[in-house]
């Protein structure tokens, strides 16, 4: 797959001080998973280069705008092993840089002229912001259930994955309602798997990328795996859980072998989600046989996404 250049300094005004330097830092180290998903979808749907770039830029701009704002909200010092933008530059610049990316998305989409795409993208941004807002309101809530967190993640994370799955079809002007309902569900499940896998990284599970351990816990936020671990804990145990500084403490708190057992249960639960995801793709394949190669390709995604394999 050809590497897409999402960010070009020519696309942004050079007279705005520090803007391009900020974006250089932001876009240089990302995995670009979402834009790769767009490319994968677009290859099968035979979209042209301009369309692929539009979609890839849109999703990466929106995603990175949310990261700029997130880091300021959470007061995170690092992003992708570099100093976070709000800290390196100023909080004001971080906010404005995020807003500018969103504005650029609207400029690009409106120039392209697909009204349905514009409408869907604005709804997605709205969902994303709603999810962020609600997630922030849950900081410090140590009794939040997995079910409630899934609703937050559906807004915050899954909305982008749903967009990646559906937007290429919208660009292709394939707006079959039935197809889009199922694609929406497929994107939702993919987003959920991604988020849960990301939450496992926080507990050093399959953490090959070396993400900081227990960052969510230390920020006062119970992520999906944290909530799963805490669901049977009494108040005293939850207090101790909250204060854990490293994984040894977490494992000691749960008891010998219990952590591995709980992880196994969590993985088992997510295997059911993967099975459901594959089932929906099979159903789509039988309804739209001409798209079977696309759906067969999408079936491979849980491996890198959840199991963090290749």
């Amino acid at each position: 797959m050809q590497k897409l250049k999402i960010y070009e300094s020519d696309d942004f005004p050079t007279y705005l001080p520090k803007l391009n330097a900020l974006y250089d830092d932001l876009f240089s180290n990302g995995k670009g998973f979402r834009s790769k998903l767009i490319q994968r979808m677009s290859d099968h749907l035979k979209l042209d280069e301009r369309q692929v770039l539009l979609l890839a830029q849109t999703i990466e701009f929106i995603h990175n705008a949310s990261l700029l704002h997130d880091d300021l909200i959470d007061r995170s010092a690092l992003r992708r092993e570099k100093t976070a933008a709000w800290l390196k530059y100023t909080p004001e610049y971080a906010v404005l840089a995020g807003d500018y990316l969103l504005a650029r998305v609207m400029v690009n989409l409106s120039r392209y002229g697909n009204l349905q795409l514009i409408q869907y993208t604005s709804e997605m941004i709205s969902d994303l912001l709603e999810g962020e807002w609600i997630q922030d309101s849950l900081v410090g809530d140590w009794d939040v259930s997995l079910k409630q967190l899934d609703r937050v993640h559906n807004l915050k994370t899954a909305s982008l994955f749903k967009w990646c799955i559906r937007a290429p079809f919208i660009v292709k002007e394939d707006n079959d309602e039935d197809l889009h309902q199922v694609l929406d569900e497929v994107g939702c499940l993919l987003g959920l798997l991604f988020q849960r896998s990301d939450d496992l990284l926080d507990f050093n599970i399959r953490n090959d990328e070396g993400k900081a351990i227990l960052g969510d816990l230390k920020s006062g936020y119970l992520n999906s795996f944290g909530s799963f671990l805490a669901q049977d804990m009494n108040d005293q145990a939850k207090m101790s859980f909250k204060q854990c500084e490293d994984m040894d403490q977490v494992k000691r708190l749960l008891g010998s072998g219990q952590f591995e057992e709980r992880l196994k249960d969590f993985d088992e639960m997510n295997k059911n989600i993967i099975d459901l995801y594959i089932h929906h793709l099979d159903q789509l394949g039988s309804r739209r046989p001409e798209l079977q190669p696309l759906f067969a390709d999408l079936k491979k995604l849980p491996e890198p996404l959840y199991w963090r394999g290749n």
Partner: protein
Amino acid sequence: MSEFITLEKGHESFSAHLLGTFSKEKRALPVKSFHANTDVERITFRLVDKEKIQKPSTVEVVAQLFRVELLGLTLMPLAVTLILLWNSSVEVNWFLAGLALLVATFFHGAAFSYNDYIDHIKGIDRVGVHSGSRVIQEAWLTAHQVHRISLGLMAFGGVLSLPIIYLKPLPAIGVAVGVMLGVLGYSFAGRGFRARGLGPTLISLCLGPLLTCGVSMAAANVVPMSVVYLGFYFGFLAALYLQLRHFERIMADDELKIKTLISRLGFDKSKKFILLQLSLVNFFFGALIYFNGWSSIYYWGLVPLALASANLFSRISRCQSPLSSSLEGLRSSGAYLHLVASFTLFLLLLSR
């Protein structure tokens, strides 16, 4: 590996899977509906072996289906009214009174289990809102079984109500309609009422003065003012219960575009509105004692009520998010508050 099957409405096995009659060894749990409640509905079911389902005891399953936690909303107004009449030395036909309580119990169970069945068939329980008893969704019972149970309860209730209808037709029908409308105001089927903000009004009338005055008329041929006051107090408590339930679901109702009073007010204003009502629970209890001219010893009843309402007050005050853990189970706490108030009144009136 999980087993899934997706069926369209016209498929020959669709109904059998939805009702749970397709197999003796397996249950089909709906996990996703597309085009819910339309002619082109398609449902994805997860098939599980019946023996692998972790089912609680039969008593727990029946209690959950029957909504035992809500039985107080239906029965306690009747019971407290009867005790009030006895306390006021009014002549009560205890045979009819006992029958009325039994009939109300059966109709309560029938209405809620039928509601669960209908919500399942229409797909309401699959649109992301976790309401109902969950008995069907957890595969503890099939939809077909729940339907039969609801019809059986309705039949029992109907048979038991015959003497009441024969002897006191108008009050009997009034009470029955009151209970049914009350459940309608509560359930998703009554979302039309809720959309017009009539849910709390319906509930407060039907599970309040209609119930207390109806049973007073049926059992004693008289409706003293104290029974009317009592009715309005119970109506207030029932409406508060409903609002707590709506507050618990404020985000889900907004997503489904169900405009309840709570969702119209929004999170912040609803919180204040409910906190105000929780304060008024105690005030109105005191007013009930005062205006009925009851003994001042009855004011001691405020102690357990104040404790229960303070606990709920504190929980709601702490709540900062529509998905906060403090909101989970809020409706059960509302039902508990109703039970504390009504049971306190019952004991006070019983003590004479």
